[in-house]
């Protein structure tokens, strides 16, 4: 079985400051990793994904994440945030299997202060 832990339920940052949202996972087999974003009053959409290859993946809106197998982490980063980045961010994991569920973390609410 796999699991996902997002240690920070809320992260307040000032506009133009850097941010890191933490995600750790647990799995007995190899996994695919995802970050989804839910903007206020909108549905979830994919931000970025790690499938294989380069451990640094870039997503939309200037976000990137780095897969660290030894630390079983997939932290999300952005060097300079904007008010429009205010949203809830969910980390998700799926095991290497054609019949495998996708498990989400509990989410991190990112609030940007002007």
């Amino acid at each position, binding site marked *: 079985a796999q699991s996902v832990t*997002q240690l920070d339920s809320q992260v307040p940052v000032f506009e133009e400051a850097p941010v890191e949202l933490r995600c750790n996972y647990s799995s007995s087999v190899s996994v695919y990793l*995802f970050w989804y974003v839910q903007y206020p009053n909108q*549905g979830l959409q*994919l931000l970025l994904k790690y*499938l294989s290859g380069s451990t640094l993946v870039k997503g939309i809106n200037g976000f990137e994440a780095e897969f660290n197998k030894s630390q079983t982490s997939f932290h999300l980063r952005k060097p300079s945030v904007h008010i429009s980045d205010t949203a809830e961010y969910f980390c998700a994991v799926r095991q290497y299997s054609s*019949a495998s*569920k*996708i498990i*989400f973390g509990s*989410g991190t609410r990112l609030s940007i202060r002007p």
Partner: protein
Amino acid sequence: GAGVSQSPSNKVTEKGKDVELRCDPISGHTALYWYRQSLGQGLEFLIYFQGNSAPDKSGLPSDRFSAERTGGSVSTLTIQRTQQEDSAVYLCASSFGDRVLLNSGANVLTFGAGSRLTVL
């Protein structure tokens, strides 16, 4: 269709009544997922379909919850004898489920807008 369609978008019901929530996935998507999002909570996995079968229904909270999928397409989530703690947004998502497509990223989930259930 162009996206994942869920109905109703809002449902208010009385405690003890049964409700049905419908999900119409993207055409061609063989995998279908139901999640529950409660206020202040994350996404709670409920059940996963591959075609018409459910390899994993471990997330269903109780035997009051059931789901089915017919024709490899539309899915219905049924909650019997609703309780106030069932109040939440129920999200449906679909994706390609073919292993060949997994490495292409085609298994990314597309979510519907959700069905907001309020049990009075």
